[in-house]
């Protein structure tokens, strides 16, 4: 297969070359970002608040109408997105939100199952506004669980969940991943979460991928494992946190 102009090849699920994006003239958000995600690879994306993670995801989802920019992007046809805000349609009940756009008789059944999996059995007919913050986030997760994308983009999908629920949801996400083997790009602020779930962790900073770490730990990935702790320390340092709690002030 011939390489595309700009150097893109189609062997990977996601390829980005030299992506530039900015909203205002003075402050580019992404400046020359390169990224490749292999088919079936699970990538976690860390980065400071405002560093451009959501912007990157929106670019991949083809939604960046607001931004101006250049770059080459190659993504699969079937992309599924979990937005940072859970983005439920307020005028559709929970179940309808989950099965939105699905066709066929099995959709409702699958939707109910997914709701049960995220711990919301029995809330099918609730309005989105009647759910707690974490519940809304779980509905959004359920919405992506009932689909079979080639690429899953998830923007802090567990941010509003408590520790226990979060671990359950990790299990669900891993199970989905094992089932269909989509490429996954997961944005998170929880370093441990990134290490536990991902094959590779990226740190976005000043518009480019500043740090990259392949997670080659063995199966269990126990946070109390020293190797785990070492990776954690490395990533926290990349995020500007040397030692773990000391604040390294890094004003722009």
């Amino acid at each position, binding site marked *: 297969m011939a390489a595309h102009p700009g150097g893109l090849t189609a062997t990977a699920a996601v390829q980005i070359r030299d992506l530039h994006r900015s909203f205002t003239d003075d402050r580019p958000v992404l400046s020359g970002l390169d990224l490749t995600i292999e088919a079936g690879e699970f990538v976690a994306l860390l980065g400071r608040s405002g560093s451009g993670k959501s912007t990157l995801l929106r670019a991949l989802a083809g939604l960046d109408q607001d931004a101006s920019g250049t770059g080459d992007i190659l993504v699969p046809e*079937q*992309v599924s997105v979990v937005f940072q805000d859970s*983005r439920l349609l307020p005028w*559709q009940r929970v179940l309808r939100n989950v099965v*939105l*756009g699905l066709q066929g008789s099995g959709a409702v059944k699958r939707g109910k199952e997914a709701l049960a999996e995220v711990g919301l059995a029995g809330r099918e007919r609730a309005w989105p506004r009647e759910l707690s913050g974490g519940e809304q986030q779980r509905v959004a997760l359920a*919405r992506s669980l009932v689909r079979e994308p080639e690429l899953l983009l998830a923007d802090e999908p567990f941010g509003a969940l408590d520790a226990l629920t979060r671990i359950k949801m990790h299990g669900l996400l891993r199970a989905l991943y094992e089932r269909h083997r989509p490429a996954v790009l997961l944005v998170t602020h929880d370093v441990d979460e990134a290490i536990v779930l991902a094959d590779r962790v990226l740190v976005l900073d000043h518009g480019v991928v500043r740090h990259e770490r392949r997670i080659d730990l063995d199966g269990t990935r126990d946070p109390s494992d020293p190797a785990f702790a070492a990776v954690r320390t490395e990533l926290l340092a990349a995020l500007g946190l040397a030692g773990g709690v000391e604040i390294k002030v890094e004003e722009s």
Partner: protein
Amino acid sequence: MTAVVKGTAKTETAAPAVVPPVDDEELAAGRASRPRGKRRLGPGKPIKLGYLIGPLLLLGVWIWGSAQGWIDPRVLTAPWTVVTTAWDLWESGRLGPDLLVSARRFALGLVFGVLAGLVLALVSGLSRWGEAIVDGPVQIKRSIPNLALLPLLLLWFGIDERMKIITIALGVLIPIYIHTHNGLRSIDGRYAELAETLRLKPAAFVGRVVLPGALPGFLLGMRFAVTSSWLSLVVVEQVNATSGIGYMMLLAGTYGQTDVIIVGLVLYALLGLASDTVVRLIQRRALSWRRTLED
């Protein structure tokens, strides 16, 4: 459920002041306590049957003014005269059939107008080309006085029932179109993004996102549409009509039968209020997913 609901406010300087207990009604209803007293901002709780107060007040002024004699009965017929006139009209068989005929025109015009308005709004709301073609002519139609259009409508659609219903429908179309179009275009762009990433089919996009999202606008348009449909009767029933309340009023107007005119006005007021109330009830039901200042 026996605990006393109480709210107490502590200020920085003074000793804690005891806010008076919430009223009994709230207690009985098992409502939550409001530590800081009543809700201060927003309209507050609805008054029961409050929507009747204004009209009843008007009626009161009318009755009282007529009884006192400072409303000239030649200008504004006294309410009792209106009632007897209405009764006479009814008895003589002029009001009943008139109303029926008008109601039929109202209903047909409304149905066709709403359908046409919706279709146009969707076409124009969802496609820039549709908008380019549809929007201007609709705006022009709505800028042109209906009365002045009458000769053209006569010419195109004749003078029979068809022309009347088309004219009413053309009037109804306008608010439906504008409100639905506006409501549709006001839908939060984030939901369109969502629909896009879910790769919704256009039909599903319209059915699940666009129509429900534009529903508040559409229903506001309906409120204007129903009154517009009644009001159009005044114009269309000038043409080749021998019945209908618009015709009745027209005739009374040219003859200067003040009491019949007032009967007509009261009828219009009642019909308008009733139709509006129906739409508002539907509004409340259909938009129950919202929590707004209203609630």
